[in-house]
């Protein structure tokens, strides 16, 4: 049941009624913009030496996580890899806490002990933030296992890249999830490059949405640059899982504008390729155009959103620099839970 999906926003004809309302699209636009601006700011702080180590930006892929999050309910769980800032913001985690974690400060979600790749929020259903490629997929199956065990009707969403999709434990997790009918949505964020290796050079499959076919897991290819297409597919996946039919797999065809991490010279692709994606398929521009053309949203209304987002990001950057570094006593805490 794979659908051909070009990474173009023009899949839906004008005649077709949009499946999204004005308010929802405004919210999606706002959430995508927040991630974009946050990541730009993170890139800037990295450039200034305020953020260390690895820093993997999500710029370009915002529609995937924002579209999916619109399908979820409180209590549902999200887990992903190290390119995780967008996922955290989408689940509603505070920009301040995320940015302060990036700068390694006590005000960060992990008190500065996790960094860019390791943040969590039980309250928001965000289970990390994992640095080992593919590990989060098995863990995500475990979140779904817990839902199945407790019979609480929740679903878990496990995000991973097309690079991770080749890991052995991913296939083990697909089998386990299908075997036990776990409510798990596997999302391959196919941004075409696993670090510097294009998907064509890493996977013999040309349709990753069918990677669960051997276990009967339904899969779809989705235009991951289109937040509406993502939401539509997400709704199908969530309905399937909540109905107790087991896992579902979505391959989101997306694109990251920035390098794999901050220190990636990106020689494996041309500037023209990146530029073309930005100009023709950008998820935020597409949403913005639709808001103006089809929902008569005014520039003034959009400016209010832009300003709100800018203020949140600036506040997070200020906080992330003002929050102190963790005290030395933090070295020895949280290694073990003290016995109750």
């Amino acid at each position: 049941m794979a659908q051909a999906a070009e990474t173009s926003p023009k899949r839906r004809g004008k005649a077709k009624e949009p499946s999204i309302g004005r308010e929802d699209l405004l919210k999606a636009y706002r959430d995508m913009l927040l991630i974009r601006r946050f990541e730009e700011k993170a890139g800037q702080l990295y450039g200034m030496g305020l953020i260390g180590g690895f820093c993997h930006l999500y710029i370009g892929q915002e529609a995937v996580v924002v579209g999916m999050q619109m399908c979820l309910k409180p209590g549902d769980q999200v887990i992903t890899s190290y390119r995780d800032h967008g996922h955290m913001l989408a689940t509603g985690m505070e920009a301040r806490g995320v940015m302060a974690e990036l700068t390694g400060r006590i005000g960060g979600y992990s008190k500065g002990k996790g960094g860019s790749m390791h943040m969590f929020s039980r309250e928001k259903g965000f289970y990390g933030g994992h640095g080992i490629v593919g590990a989060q997929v098995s863990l995500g199956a475990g979140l779904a296992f817990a839902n199945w065990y407790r019979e609480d009707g929740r679903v878990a969403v496990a995000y991973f890249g097309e690079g991770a999709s080749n890991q052995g434990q991913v296939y083990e997790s697909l089998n386990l999830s299908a075997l036990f009918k776990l409510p798990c949505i596997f999302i391959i964020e196919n941004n075409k490059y696993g670090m510097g290796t294009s998907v064509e050079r890493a996977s013999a499959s040309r349709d990753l949405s069918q990677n669960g076919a051997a276990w009967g897991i339904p899969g779809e290819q989705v235009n991951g640059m289109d937040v509406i297409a993502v939401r539509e597919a997400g709704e199908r996946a969530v309905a399937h899982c909540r109905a107790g039919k087991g896992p579902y797999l979505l391959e989101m065809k997306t694109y990251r504008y920035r390098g794999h991490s901050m220190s990636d010279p990106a020689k494996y692709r041309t500037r023209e390729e990146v530029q073309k994606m930005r100009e023709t398929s950008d998820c935020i521009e597409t949403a913005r155009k639709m808001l103006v053309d089809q929902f008569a949203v005014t520039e003034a209304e959009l400016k209010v959103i832009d300003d709100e987002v800018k203020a949140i990001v600036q506040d997070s950057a200020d906080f992330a620099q003002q929050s102190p570094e963790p005290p030395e006593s933090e070295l020895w805490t949280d290694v073990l839970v003290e016995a109750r």
Partner: protein
Amino acid sequence: MGAVILMPALSPTMTEGKLARWLKKEGDAVKSGDVIAEIETDKATMEVEAVDEGTITRIVVPEGTEGVQVNSPIAELDGGAGGAAAQTMHGITNKNPRENEKMIAETGTAQRTEVHAPATAKAPAAPAEKDWGPTASITVREALRDAMAAEMRADKDVFLIGEEVAQYQGAYKISQGLLDEFGPKRVMDMPITEHGFTGMAVGAAFTGLKPIVEFMTFNFSMQAIDQIINSAAKTLYMSGGQLGCQIVFRGPNGAASRVAAQHSQCYASWYAHCPGLKVVAPWSAADAKGLLRAAIRDPNPVIVLENEIMYGHSFECPTDPDFILPIGKAKVERAGTDVTIVAFSIMVGLAMQAAEKLAEQGISAEVINLRSLRPLDTETIANSVRKTNRLVTVEEGWPYAGIGAEVAMQIMETCFDHLDAPPVRVHGLDIPMPYAANLEKLALPRLEQVVDAAKSVTYK
């Protein structure tokens, strides 16, 4: 004046680079995401993207300039329409945090030593072994099963997964009867996919469930060791204490009999090496029952290293339904005055036999059953050594960076002055386990080696 564009760092180690090319010139308008320049380091060429909107009013560093310091101004930008652009730079503290890091790096050694570890080996100062009253003879196998059953009855969040644990009743019959009592949801057979089901169990534990993961043998845990270390052991720390992982990994460890190298390996030092884990290694039925119950209740990931050969052995075990043992506390199995023999798991039995032999020769050996490898009960060992002044360690595993090495070092650190002889290690040979019966026997610690070691440190 508007914002200042600074020379960015491409990596944490970059301090300077070449400004290779400007893609914008003075007077050009830029918006967020525009590529404005290219910079080069010895490793890479990268594009600099604008973060703020505005018009470039001045290019400070011309293209082709080498050795441009990170964070030095390369261009100036007017505020553009937003005006917020200017603030972005104003908010930045002028001090380069990398300088700070460098400072720490240079003086770090001294600073770091001031931060004392709260003794990783710190064990709870538990009272002497509690008397649990009447006992009955049961096998180690039954003790393990009873421990799981008791905890599963008490807590519906506890469940058992593993290969052949349910319908087959356990590859080594440890889970016999559990499927009947608790049903297929709480006693679940897994496909042969250790990496996947271990990760799945850890994920479930993140939500508050309390899985017991049985490895058919610990040899197969190597398939899953990334999930055990990187996910189970480290997440609490990485999350600043938010996300713990109450999970037990258990199964037979070490040499069985005639199963060759891939199935005969001791993982004690592998797992005991890692902060964020607890590691126990029972010997007797009471150890097995008391430690496994404690492991299941412990809010941390606990590795329970069992021994296949011990499964069928019977011991007296307390019948008190509340019987439990503390993790982190060793047991003095036999009191003595001349030499301390430290062992764990099946080697405790060998140490006890050696003590008998030594007694016949007039040497009084004290035998310590470690029970817990992490945390290690250094206090109990040290107290013994202060009395005997001599130490012998016994383990099945390899000597290099092994448990014996660690015990010896801890004793050096805590009571070196009490030692009257260098500690001696008895251990498995530093080779993959051979299959041939005669060679296998030679590869594992033997009774006479323990006796000889004790005699050598007592100079007898």
